[in-house]
């Protein structure tokens, strides 16, 4: 499991880095979000479209990056807690021969 997962993770990193390198060579590559590109496409298709509702609250850019990091950290924290907890449990079970299972 360990070796296989290690391999898969390396493959994922290679894909991300590779995508970045290939993407950097595209003309005008600024790595803007595909979501905002789609919204720009709307402006092309229907020039007079005006958003009829604005954000209730928009964080300043620095705060936004912090909140994005917080989102990832919370997710990774809970996930990591779960995985570590279960791994520890499984190992403790293996050490006790009388526990069966």
């Amino acid at each position, binding site marked *: *499991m360990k070796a*296989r*997962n290690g391999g*898969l*993770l390396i*493959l*994922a990193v290679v*894909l*991300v880095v590779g*995508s*970045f390198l*290939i*993407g*950097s*060579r*595209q*003309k*005008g*590559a600024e*790595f*803007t*979000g*595909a*979501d*905002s*590109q*789609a*919204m720009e*496409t*709307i402006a092309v*298709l*229907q020039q007079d*479209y005006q*958003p*009829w*509702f*604005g*954000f*209730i*609250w*928009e*964080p300043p850019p620095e705060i*936004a990056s912090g*909140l*994005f*990091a917080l*989102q*990832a950290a*919370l*997710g*990774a*924290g*809970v*996930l990591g807690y*779960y*995985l570590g907890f*279960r*791994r520890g*449990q*499984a190992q403790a079970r293996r050490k006790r021969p009388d526990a069966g299972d």
Partner: protein
Amino acid sequence: MHITEGFLPPLHAAVWTAVALPFIVVSACRVNRLMRDQPQTKLLLAAAGAFAFMISALKLPSVTGSCSHATGTGLGAALFGPSAMALLGTLVLLFQALLLAHGGITTLGANVFSMAIVGPWIAYAVLRGTQRLGAPLALSVFLAAMLGNWATYLTTAGQLALAFPDPASGIAGSFLKFAGVFAPTQLPLAVVEGLLTVVIVNFLREYSGEELRSLKFPPQTLATETRL
């Protein structure tokens, strides 16, 4: 796949909200029942939600020179069934709409429909389908997560096309334009999401056997359909 606040005409926004709402209610009931009947899986459900939370915050670069993010809903759909994910996905989207100015409240229904309903259902269908055909579990999980991701983005393209048909080529032409923005960007990212989902599932099969058994995962190839 986040349609920005205000970028769907009011009628479309209302219809997608109405479509998404029953799924969210059913999902809340399903999660509630799961907590009551199988409380031992509570922590795993939190972990599956956390995976989606984490991975949808990471904007990854793509070959097109733009960037986008994975959805992370395939894992939960594979483990808990697609209907459980509508609630978790809604929570993720709500957080992003309220705190990050990413997505929106008026477009929440449409975004929930693509990310928390269509994506998980496609992922689940792919998992069951490929398992029935006898595919190895890792391959099934990989395809489920990857295709669930694509399905989410194609759904968004469809929603935008319905709202903004091309003056010359209509809805179909508009769909191709929006899909042309998303699909190439999403291609490598969906593969990354598939790989990460397989990594987590491998780990779970090693250390979380009891929970997986109580969730009847992996699905038996010829078992009767009991869950859903």
